[in-house]
């Protein structure tokens, strides 16, 4: 049962990855791509790690640290990239 649940989490994460990374190739603005990347890289990766956590609960401490640092760093990097790219002159 838990095995199936962990697979579902990992597969959802990979679907998020693909959905959020494919817009990178098109020519939209940096900010629009940043929105879809935050879906892919933050939320998708979080759900993959939760899937791994269900698989190997004995290493919960390391995986929990991974989730926390992933959420904080990716969000802060998104803000820094948005700030720098919007006030650096060229927007697209």
């Amino acid at each position: 049962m838990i095995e199936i649940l962990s697979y579902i989490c990992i597969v959802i994460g990979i679907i998020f990855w693909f959905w959020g990374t494919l817009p990178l190739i098109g020519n939209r603005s940096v900010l629009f791509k940043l929105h879809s990347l935050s879906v892919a890289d933050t939320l998708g990766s979080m759900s993959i790690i939760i899937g791994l956590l269900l698989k190997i609960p004995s290493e919960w401490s390391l995986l929990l640290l991974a989730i926390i640092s992933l959420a904080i760093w990716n969000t802060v990097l998104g803000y820094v990239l948005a700030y720098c790219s919007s006030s650096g002159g060229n927007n697209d």
Partner: protein
Amino acid sequence: MDTIAYFNIILRLAIWFLLTADFSLANIIIGVSIAFLLPRSYTSPGKLKDWLRVLWEIVIAIPQAYIEAIQIMLLPHNQEEIVLERVKPQRTPGLIFLDIFLITFTPKTIVLKYHERGWYEVHRVRRGKRHNKDIERSSLMEKSNEEMTQ
């Protein structure tokens, strides 16, 4: 010692214990002494009530982020716009950082810039057809600049 210093030490201790996962007495002593010995900066204290509310908002933000992600995935959100949001009064820098974190964490909104006089510039995507976004964006920027100067 104010609340942000407490949070600082709690964060350090959490990283230490999660990385080592060892609750023996020696390890606890090492972790606590490292957490107190590392240098820390001094900031102005915020109200404890504000901190608790922001912590609660973080707990809410995680499921909300997933809901917004699914909404974006199912329905096309093609319109982009830049909005100005007011910062709530009497915020310390730590609380403002957490606010920016919360806004950026949800997939539909990203904070672009924080103005010193109490405004966030928030970029968000909306549902609808895409039409000539450059013109729209520049006019929005002008309008927001006018609002700023008033």
